[in-house]
């Protein structure tokens, strides 16, 4: 085991030391190495070009992450190319990743030579011509402009707010997402020009593996995948473990429904992950690394493959990285869609080609993991934090955040908020700031009800706790947890019993079946919730009695599952129920005692009626009703037979005059 920095083949600072570095990285690391003024100028020009500090012709950037493409970015891109061809304009068209403002997609940035880069929102294909006509003519088109990027040497546009003043971006601290949506993810040179791979070069030159572990431990970086275990400590376990070789696994199996941070990072800035992986592998002494990524993310897989190939071609990966004795091979493993594979030992089983069931611990993976050798598993975001942490130092990193949680956290903000997307905030930011400042509050004048944090293992944060800090410990005090970063906002139209049922249904299906408390317990909990949500129509005999009986045992059952399950999935499985029960007991009571759903969601507890003043007798509802519960003849008032109605809401959807009432 080496304890000193790996041996280099040449003294640092000499030209030979850079012999195995990518050319661009050499220039940036050793800016004055060339005495020749012309060569130096040429290099500076190249970097300025890559950083887009200086443009010779207009550049059009189209955000083509999965969410951008979902909103029609491909058509926008085609329209931009067609426009430029038609007008024979020479301009660069760059496919960038996602800056994170999903609700404003498709996003298009335009930068004219000498001027700042301006971001435009909701640029569907029909708006492209107008946008480019105006911009190429030196005008900002009406209404479309979102913000402009601040730049010291470029002339700003009038009347366009700066990005760091925009309410979505102003409260954010973007460390992991700093390049997302700005650079071309398929160009390693752009990443390097923006400071990429400098941390790796610094690590290789200055630090021994032990020092890297110390540095990461001192920074206070904790696992971003949910558990929050200190990353440096984990690395040390593997470093100290006996073994000829070790493995590093990057967990990109983002299984939480409602979370998409890892996908966006890999799609928009894959080299950041690659750099983090190489540094982590160096620190723990791994020679082989796996990226376990969801098969549902084809675009992320494609971009990661491109990034790995580029890194290898530039000797940043593979044999003798940057001319040292350190070698690393990174392989991509596609997950086959099992939520439990987010659990470390289940993930290991899955890579080994088995059913993704967890193993009892100890032995911990850091001692005996993949194929029986010491293995470290880190989340994408944890690894993506590493390059900047190493480059700027532990003090810089730990200066931000709360006493127990350092740095930033990326959240996927979605649900009932005005602005959805990827949000990166400093630890210690309040949930209220995220929902109301960044997210812009609840649309359509509805009232806030709760935010669900941490996915199926997490909990809900109601109105009275909105001022809680984003911090691993404080979130636990309200029965929630940091989780991987899904933040789903709910308004008064969402039923909390239904949300609990949704998560129980999910967990029950995803329970691997290995241990009994989780397999049977989650099933029983789901049944209890189903009974609560069941209408009178389907109740027979002692069903009502069972309903009450089972509710009495809900808490007891939840605690048993939590205490007796084998892995994290089971231990946190009752959280959605416990958390909603704690803060929204009145909703449960309305369901159980009054047999009604206050939010009007639980279909079986709803009654539909027809407003006699509005019904025109069009017969559409009667035709579409799946249970023939609506009677009436043409041009006559229709009527819903309550006993036949299953509450599907089809009549409400099809009624044009809005005569169907829901209660």
């Amino acid at each position: 085991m080496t304890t000193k920095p790996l041996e280099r083949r040449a003294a640092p600072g000499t030209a030979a030391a850079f012999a195995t570095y990518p050319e661009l990285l050499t220039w940036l690391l050793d800016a004055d190495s060339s005495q020749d003024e012309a060569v130096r100028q040429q290099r500076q020009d190249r970097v300025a070009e890559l950083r887009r500090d200086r443009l010779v012709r207009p550049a059009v950037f189209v955000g083509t992450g999965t969410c951008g493409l979902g909103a029609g970015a491909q058509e926008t891109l085609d329209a931009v190319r067609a426009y430029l061809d038609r007008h024979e304009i020479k301009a660069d068209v760059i496919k960038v990743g996602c800056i994170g403002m999903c609700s404003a997609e498709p996003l298009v940035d335009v930068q004219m030579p000498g001027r700042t880069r301006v971001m435009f929102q909701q640029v569907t294909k029909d708006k492209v011509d107008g946008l480019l006509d105006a911009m190429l003519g030196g005008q900002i088109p009406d209404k479309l402009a979102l913000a402009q990027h601040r730049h010291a040497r470029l002339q700003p546009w009038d009347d366009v707010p700066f990005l760091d003043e925009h309410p979505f971006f102003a409260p954010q601290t973007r460390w992991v997402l700093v390049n997302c949506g700005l650079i071309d993810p398929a160009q390693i040179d752009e990443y390097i020009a923006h400071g990429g791979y400098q941390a790796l070069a610094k690590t290789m030159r200055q630090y021994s593996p032990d020092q890297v572990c110390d540095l990461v431990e001192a920074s206070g970086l904790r696992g971003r995948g949910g558990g929050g275990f200190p990353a440096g400590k984990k690395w040390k376990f593997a470093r100290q473990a006996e073994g000829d070789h070790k493995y590093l696994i990057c967990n990109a199996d983002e299984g939480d429904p409602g979370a998409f941070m890892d996908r966006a990072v890999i799609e928009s800035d894959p080299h950041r992950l690659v750099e983090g992986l190489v540094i982590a592998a160096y620190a723990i002494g791994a020679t082989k690394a796996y990226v376990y990524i969801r098969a549902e993310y084809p675009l992320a897989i494609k971009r990661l493959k491109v990034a790995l190939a580029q890194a290898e071609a530039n000797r940043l990966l593979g044999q003798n990285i940057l001319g040292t004795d350190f070698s690393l091979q990174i392989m991509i493993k596609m997950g086959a869609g099992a939520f439990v594979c987010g659990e470390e030992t289940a993930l290991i089983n899955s890579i080994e080609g088995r059913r993704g069931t967890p193993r009892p611990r100890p032995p911990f993976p850091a001692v005996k993991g993949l194929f029986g050798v010491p293995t470290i598993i880190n989340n994408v975001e944890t690894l993506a934090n590493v390059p900047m942490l190493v480059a700027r130092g532990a003090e810089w990193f730990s200066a931000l955040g709360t006493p127990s949680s350092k740095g930033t956290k990326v959240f996927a903000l979605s649900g009932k908020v005005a602005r959805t997307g990827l949000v990166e905030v400093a630890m210690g930011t309040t949930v209220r700031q995220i929902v109301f400042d960044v997210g812009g509050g609840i649309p359509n004048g509805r009232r806030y009800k709760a935010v669900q944090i941490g996915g199926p293992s997490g909990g809900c944060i109601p109105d009275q706790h909105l001022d809680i800090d984003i911090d691993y410990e404080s979130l636990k005090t309200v029965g929630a947890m940091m989780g991987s970063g899904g933040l789903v906002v709910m308004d008064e139209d969402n039923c909390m019993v239904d949300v609990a049922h949704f998560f129980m249904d999910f967990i029950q299906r995803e329970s691997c079946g290995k241990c009994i408390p989780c397999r049977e317990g989650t099933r029983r909990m789901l049944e209890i919730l189903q009974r609560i949500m069941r209408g009178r129509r389907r109740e027979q005999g002692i069903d009502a009695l069972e309903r009450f009986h089972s509710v009495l045992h809900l808490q007891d059952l939840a605690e048993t599952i939590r205490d007796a399950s084998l892995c994290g999935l089971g231990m946190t499985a009752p959280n959605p129920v416990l958390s909603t029960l704690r803060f929204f007991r009145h909703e449960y009571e309305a369901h159980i005692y009054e047999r009604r759903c206050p939010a009007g969601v639980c279909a079986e507890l709803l009654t539909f009626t027809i407003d006699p003043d509005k019904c025109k007798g069009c017969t559409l509802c009667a035709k579409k009703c799946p249970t023939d519960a609506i009677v009436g003849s043409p041009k006559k008032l229709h009527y819903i037979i309550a006993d036949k109605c299953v509450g599907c809401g089809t009549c409400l959807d099809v009624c044009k005059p809005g005569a169907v009432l829901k209660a």
Partner: protein
Amino acid sequence: MIAVLPQTTPEPDIDSILAHYPQARRETLIPLLQEVQEQHGYLSRPAIVRISQYLDLPTSKIYGVATFYNQFRFQPQGRFHVQVCRGTACHVKGSAAVLEAIKRELKIDAGQTGRDGLFSLEVVACIGACGLAPVICINGVFHASVTTQSVIKILDSYRRKAANHDDQAA
């Protein structure tokens, strides 16, 4: 942009896929199953038997692994494979109703393929496009912010597409 799959799936050619995995061991099982499914659309019985011979693993073990993961299908897909996202964000924005509307319209349940082979329906845990919820994905093309009404129109557009395609082929 609507991709139209050929109507008849070619005879499964497993051996050419197996050739990509020389010296295959247990850990190649899942990638192998993934590639077979990608090429054939599903895992057929003969395919699994062939893989079992190749890897020297009992078919029961292979079925054990394949049925554990949500990704694997044992029925052929329809020409249009409809994936409905049931993530949290989609759920709070009404994806349950959207799923019901699709089931009613196609008259099939999740995990099934219609009798005419035109549509198959799958429920996925999360596509990762939560900002655009609720989302459905048909043959890899995303449809964002769908409603119970708009999905019917979307499905109709695929029906028309298929009809046009068949007319041209005839």
